[in-house]
């Protein structure tokens, strides 16, 4: 608080801080590779994807207060949209600048399709219907290989085109001005760009009229509608916007992995994204980013617990995969009980300021 007040009061200091953050982010893959190896650059890439996903879900859950338990379905729609139109599956190879917006649009359409009939439902009904929706999408992806083969079923789609920037494939290693840029680095910068963009959009949304209307709906729907807010349309908008983020992230995921299969879009993945939002603090953009990064990096660190147990106890008592799930469950419960506002709560000041603005 104190520091941020100081920084925001001093334009030069603020400039320096931003420059430092930018420099840090730009050099991060090189530093990471040098310190921990290239696999950790890959982990950071995945973390950036989850930042996008979590921010998308944050619009739905955090801003508008609609519990969506099938969010990963939009990620799946984006990923399959990209995979189908940029792979040998249909022998079409559309470029990413067509496919990413298309995936986003497709996801948004799905969001509206899901939202239109269900948004008048109460919160917990909505949760269960969205959960069902997520499962329906996965089952469809798994089964749309017969009688006509569209999705290639459980085998998934392989040989998906990488992103081509001006004829240059991001999946290859390039050398620019003596700097070697392997695939994971190239994708890092693309993902970073997209993640920063999503953060910027989220922040703008949060303080816009729409964002404040969402929060009004979240806090008291009846009062919001009495204030003249068109709750139905705004809730639909939240669904569509959230889905868009998921769709873009999905397209990026497909191009990055080169392979998609229904196995990547289970309910547990929806819950993981939800955990990121809840852990960081619902509605707080910075908190959600923190939550996403923590929950992608932490499981990687937890991997070392298995060998550690082996060394200390002579056997693996708790499977690290189980431990991770237990921690997720515990995080959800404890956060709600002890710190419902998240690790990085929304600052009260902003709420007050908003109140002063709004009325």
């Amino acid at each position, binding site marked *: 608080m104190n520091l941020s007040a100081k920084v925001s009061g001093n334009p030069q200091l603020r400039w320096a801080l931003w420059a430092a953050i930018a420099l840090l982010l730009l050099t991060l893959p090189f530093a990471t590779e040098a310190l921990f190896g290239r696999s950790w650059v890959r982990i950071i890439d995945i973390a950036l994807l989850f930042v996008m996903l979590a921010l998308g879900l944050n619009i739905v859950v955090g801003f508008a207060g609609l519990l969506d338990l099938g969010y990963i379905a939009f990620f799946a729609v984006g990923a399959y949209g990209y995979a189908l139109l940029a792979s040998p599956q249909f022998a079409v190879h559309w470029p990413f600048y067509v496919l990413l917006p298309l995936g986003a649009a497709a996801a948004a359409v799905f969001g509206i399709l899901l939202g239109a009939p269900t948004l008048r439902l*109460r*919160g917990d009904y909505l949760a269960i219907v969205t959960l069902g929706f997520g*499962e329906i999408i996965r089952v469809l992806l798994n*089964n749309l290989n017969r*009688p006509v083969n569209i999705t290639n079923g459980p085998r998934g789609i392989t040989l998906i085109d990488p992103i081509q920037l001006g004829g240059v494939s991001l999946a290859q290693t390039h050398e620019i001005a003596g700097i070697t840029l392997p695939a994971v680095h190239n994708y890092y910068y693309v993902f970073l760009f997209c993640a920063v963009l999503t953060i910027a959009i989220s922040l703008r949304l949060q303080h816009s009229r729409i964002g404040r209307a969402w929060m009004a709906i979240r806090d008291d729907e009846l009062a919001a509608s009495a204030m003249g807010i068109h709750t139905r349309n705004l809730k639909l908008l939240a669904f569509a916007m959230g889905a868009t983020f998921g769709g873009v992230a999905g397209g990026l995921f497909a191009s990055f992995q080169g392979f998609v299969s229904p196995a990547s879009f289970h309910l547990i993945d929806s819950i993981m994204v939800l955990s990121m939002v809840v852990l960081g603090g619902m509605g707080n953009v910075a908190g959600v980013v923190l939550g996403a990064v923590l929950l992608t990096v932490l499981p990687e660190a937890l991997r070392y617990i298995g060998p550690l147990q082996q060394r200390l106890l002579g056997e693996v008592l708790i499977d690290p995969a189980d431990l991770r799930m237990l921690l997720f469950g*515990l995080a959800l419960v404890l956060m709600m009980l002890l710190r419902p506002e998240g690790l990085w709560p929304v600052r009260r000041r902003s709420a007050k300021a908003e109140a002063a603005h709004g009325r």
Partner: protein
Amino acid sequence: MEIFTQQLINGLVLGSIYALVALGYTMVYGILGLINFAHGDITMVGALVALTVVQALAAAGVPAPLVLVLAGGCAILVCSLLGLSIERVAYRPLRRAPRLAPLITAIGISILLQYTAALIWGKQYIALPKLLEPAAIDIAGAQLTTLQLAIFVLACGIMALLLWFIKASRMGRAMRATEQNPDVAGLMGVNVDTVIAFTFVVGSAIGAVAGLMVVLYYGIGHYFMGFMLGLKAFTAAVLGGIGNVGGAVLGGLLLGVIESMASGYIGDLTGGVLGSNYRDIFAFLVLVLVLVVKPSGLLGQSGGDRA
């Protein structure tokens, strides 16, 4: 015809299991207006506890009826305690919190139960030792075992008992009062905390019975088995009108029959375009349809916007 009768039997028995689990959802929802996401996993714990008891006793040569009673008793005991403590720890502190909070805790509890079970029982599918040899009854060429019949009768019996209890007993009246308005009920001398705790205990105990039935019927137990079962049962409760005890059983039976008939006949009806691979979707389609067309469910009162 023989095949049709068999499919009907299949559906009714599957539906009875859904109904037993749905009762737990509907009771808690009636009182608290909360979807107890963890209920499916309480059923799972009941099933695995029963399995463990059967495994231990059957090997020791204890007679089958006694094994059944002991397995059921242990499952009910463990699940009741579990339901009681979950309510106390995870839901009671959040009774006045925003609606989202207890839902998220419920999801968390569900995950915790699953993976704690995985730690205790492992992740393998556990087989039930040979215990019963249910006799088969022949109905117009279709097979019905005594076990299947027992499951069906049990579901209907528990429903009748519950209906009577809620209508006639003192506790039942307190439950109805709490359902109407907890604050006023409190003013009228009802101990709301006790009523809610009691509801959780009864719901969990019925879940334990459902778990025992699942184990006996399918002969298999697994830490993840409660998830899909819970989801289907919740769908059944919504279908019948959530909060309504009779509706839960009706919804369960209907859903079971719909699933059974759909996987049996949809392939031929659609010329092979759809098939049994879409079985799990039917439940969700029914759910969405009911919620959109008649959110209060088949037997629910039209007071759907109670909160």
